[in-house]
């Protein structure tokens, strides 16, 4: 049954053009595109059973791609399942996600990779690309059967959650993965420097008495992995870059011609370590203007929903990470969606599991930066569609005739409040609970099927 | 607010003088008497009674100050906003005749708290009560031994004692109608 999205602003990330138009979808692909406004009585409808979705004043974008999510299945289905995670992705406007291997068991065998693909197909909310474990059990000692895993569908490797601590093993991972032409997704951290950490090391951690995770611990990790990727002429992708120094290292490495890419998560661009102070922050701007600002003082101090790895860092780091995204040092936006259950989070701060559930709030968080004039809408959409697509070796996501109908319709003016009961993810662990946001995906289509629609 | 004066400065002075006489009369002299003023206005009143006794009997009477904040039974209602003051009684009260001095006797709860406080501080031989004004409406079986003036009041009224040492200006006792 065909679907016609009418009179929206179509965003084409390949040509960086925006134009009013309509898109006809049938059999899972874009079958027609019409420029300009369609009059109400247009005879353009090709079939009487066409569903018409009025996209007036809305944006029609290719579906978003997130190369870094945690779906928790198999083994941690109390935190999230592939079904709930991809449903949440659809609610966030995403149609393709790559999931990390820190499941139980880890994604270090063909059986687990196949399970993930099967479960994702069955749920049908989004395309799921498995990232498999680089080492057996993510223990950092023995290489996983990487070639077999690629043949089973893995699109890259990582031990995410932890680095590969032994540099000699890391080198071997780089050497081996080179022949498979897929990236190593690096969680870069020198753990002896971050040992026992509670939050980012800085004035806030000092005030709150929490052991710190200094930026240097992440930077030492990034520098090491860049050097080893350079040594082996292999390919490194740096996950969740959170420090100004880390962005600078990647920028310099790219300038030297190293095959390195990076990603930026919305929380590392919009939330600083001062959020851990909550209402203790005497200097916070306590105004939640939807689409423009957030109010951290509605949160209590030591709110574990702020605990994430790498941690929320200084405001200067947030600015530098966004700058990295703007100048291409960091290639795309990745949410690092990391749902946790209440049991994991309702404990003493330093003991809480690290992670923010972010896929449903990513768009609104990034639109806030657009409204503040710090990134253009087009740049943002490119960094959420064509840029991750290129990283994954895919062509443009632009909605041309014949393209797969992965579409996100965005209402940039819709004001909504982040509420736990309304999140599709099982994980409610976001510092944004209670915040009013502006901008939401109101319709998401995956292969022509509507996977999310706001009431 | 509607104020009505029921005692002038002269009337206050005469009442204190009479109470001073009565204390000496009742106790056959003041050699074993300790005046203990209840914070706040009981303390300057106790000092004035002591001065009057000095003039009548020629002897100096010991004076103490008692704060009953930590003996109240109305913590939840009134909160802890009132400052705790110091209790200071310079002599051992065991075996003495304690004359509690306060400005207004009303429900009797303040005096009950004062009795508890005194028994924690020692074992007096006897405790007597001197007040400038008795306004009735007792909620406990407590009575004053020495009264400056009996003043019938409505429960909704307020009795305000103004003393030069605390409030400045002339001494006065006022009934305030319509006070909260």
């Amino acid at each position, binding site marked *: 049954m065909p679907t016609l999205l009418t009179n929206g602003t179509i965003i084409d990330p390949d040509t960086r053009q925006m134009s009013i138009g309509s898109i006809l979808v049938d059999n899972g692909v874009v079958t027609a595109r019409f420029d300009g406004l369609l009059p109400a009585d247009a005879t353009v409808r090709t079939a009487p059973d066409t569903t018409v979705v009025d996209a007036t004043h809305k944006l029609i974008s290719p579906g978003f791609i997130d190369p870094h999510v945690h779906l928790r299945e198999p083994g941690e289905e109390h935190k999230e399942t592939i079904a709930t995670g991809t449903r949440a992705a659809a609610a966030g406007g995403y149609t393709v996600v790559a999931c990390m291997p820190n499941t139980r068991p880890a994604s270090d065998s063909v059986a687990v990779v196949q399970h993930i693909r099967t479960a994702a197909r069955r749920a049908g909310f989004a395309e799921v690309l498995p990232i498999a474990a680089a080492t057996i059990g993510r223990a950092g000692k023995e290489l996983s059967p990487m070639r077999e895993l690629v043949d089973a569908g893995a699109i890259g490797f990582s031990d995410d959650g932890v680095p590969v601590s032994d540099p000699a093993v890391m080198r071997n991972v780089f050497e081996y993965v080179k022949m498979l032409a897929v990236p190593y997704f690096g969680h870069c951290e020198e753990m002896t420097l971050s040992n026992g950490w509670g939050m980012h090391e800085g004035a806030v951690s000092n005030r709150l008495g929490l052991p710190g995770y200094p930026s240097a611990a992440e930077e030492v990790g990034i520098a090491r992995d860049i050097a080893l990727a350079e040594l082996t002429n292999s390919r490194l992708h740096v996950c969740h870059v959170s420090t100004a120094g880390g962005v600078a290292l990647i920028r310099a490495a790219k300038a030297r011609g190293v095959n390195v890419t990076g990603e930026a998560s919305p929380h590392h661009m919009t939330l600083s370590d001062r959020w851990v102070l909550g209402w203790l922050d005497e200097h916070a701007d306590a105004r939640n203007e939807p689409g423009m600002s957030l109010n951290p003082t509605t949160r209590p101090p030591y709110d574990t929903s702020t605990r994430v790895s790498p941690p929320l860092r200084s405001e200067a780091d947030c600015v530098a990470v966004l700058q990295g995204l703007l100048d291409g040092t960091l290639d795309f936006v990745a949410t690092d969606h990391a749902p946790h259950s209440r049991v994991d989070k309702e404990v003493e701060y330093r003991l809480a599991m690290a992670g923010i559930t972010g896929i449903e709030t990513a768009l609104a968080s990034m639109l806030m930066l657009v409204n503040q004039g710090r990134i253009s809408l087009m740049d943002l959409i490119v960094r959420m569609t064509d840029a991750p697509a290129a990283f994954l070796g895919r062509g443009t996501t632009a909605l041309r005739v014949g393209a797969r109908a992965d579409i996100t319709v965005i209402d940039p003016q819709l004001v909504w409040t982040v509420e736990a009961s309304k999140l599709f993810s099982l994980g409610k662990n976001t510092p944004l609970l209670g915040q009013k946001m502006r901008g939401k995906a109101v319709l998401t289509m995956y292969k022509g099927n509507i996977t999310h629609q706001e009431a | 607010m509607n104020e009505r004066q029921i005692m002038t400065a002269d009337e206050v002075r005469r009442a204190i003088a009479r109470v001073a006489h009565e204390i000496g009369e009742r106790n056959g002299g003041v050699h074993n008497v300790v005046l203990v003023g209840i914070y706040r206005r009981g303390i300057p009143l106790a000092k004035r009674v002591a001065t009057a006794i000095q003039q009548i009997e020629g002897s100096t009477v010991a004076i103490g100050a008692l704060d009953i904040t930590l003996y109240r039974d109305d913590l*939840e209602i009134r909160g802890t906003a009132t400052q705790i003051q110091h209790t200071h009684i310079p002599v051992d009260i065991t075996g003495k005749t304690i004359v509690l001095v306060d400005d207004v006797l009303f429900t009797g709860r303040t005096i009950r708290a004062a009795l508890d406080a005194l028994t924690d501080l020692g074992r007096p031989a006897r405790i007597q009560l001197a007040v400038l004004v008795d306004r009735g409406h007792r909620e406990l079986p407590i009575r004053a031994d020495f009264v400056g003036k009996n003043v019938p009041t409505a429960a909704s009224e307020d009795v305000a004692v103004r003393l030069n040492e605390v409030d400045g200006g002339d001494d006065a006792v006022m009934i305030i109608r319509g006070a909260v």
Partner: protein
Amino acid sequence: MTMPAVSPFVPWIPTANRKRRHVLDLDDFSAAEIIDVLDAATSMKEVLGRSVPQVPILRGRTVVNVFYEESTRTRMSFELAARTLSASIMSMTAKGSSVEKGESLIDTIRTIQALGADIIVIRHGESGAPYLAAQHFKGSIINAGDGRHAHPSQALLDLFTIRERLGALQGLNVTIVGDILHSRVARSNIWGMLRCGMQVTLCAPSTLIGDVRMWQETFPTLKISYDLDAIIPATDVLMGLRLQKERMHAGLLPTLREYSTYFGISQARIDKLPDHAIVMHPGPMNEGVEIMPEAADSPRSVIEAQVTNGVAVRMALLYRLSGEATI
């Protein structure tokens, strides 16, 4: 400090009309409230001096000590404070973190709430634990020490002792010497002292202070020194902190001897203090390491007074929390 708008999600912070419900740290106490507490503690100290040190004011209230870390002295201090005010008090020691033990902190707090506790006094090894407890308890929480973050009743008794011995607090020069980086006593004292207009200098090996910029971003007037002998002649209050061996990561100091040589509170050093100056220590002391026995016993030492005053200050806190004190 203007209080931010209160979200109904967070019902436990001081409300709009400034009623204090919890004592978690001194960072949300105004100078006026600190003075109110010290004044109340003065009256409480008078009660402690009586032959029958007991008043009935908190009769019927239940106070529960929940100590996840061993501390006989602080626990006993709160027990004595509660009993003097006629409150009933129970003490519970839960070793190890709640995660290791199986029962979560929240479940423990809820259980104690169901037992009828009005006030919970909590000491915990993790910074921030009392804030978590406060979100799940209808009564009042007093933080008796959380990780390296705060120990408000200790700071208040320290301020009380200083005022008792030296009079007005404004303008006094305090030098804090010891393992400052890991010290909750230091942090709470810094808040209280700066609020009351005192000048504070931190003095320790640089590994036990950490990045100076981190301190000065929160406390712009705080001073840092690595030379104790240079600042002693201008010091009114010399506060030593225990060198916390159990919290020190290995490798922060070369030897304890080197520490004592340059930062130890010795007789020679206290002889160079101004005549009126006092020496303090929260206890327990490592005599011979951060403080020499002669210094601890000297007439300048107010260490024992700190212990007595601790009971009075804790009585004042229990009292003020029981009646919905306005601040």
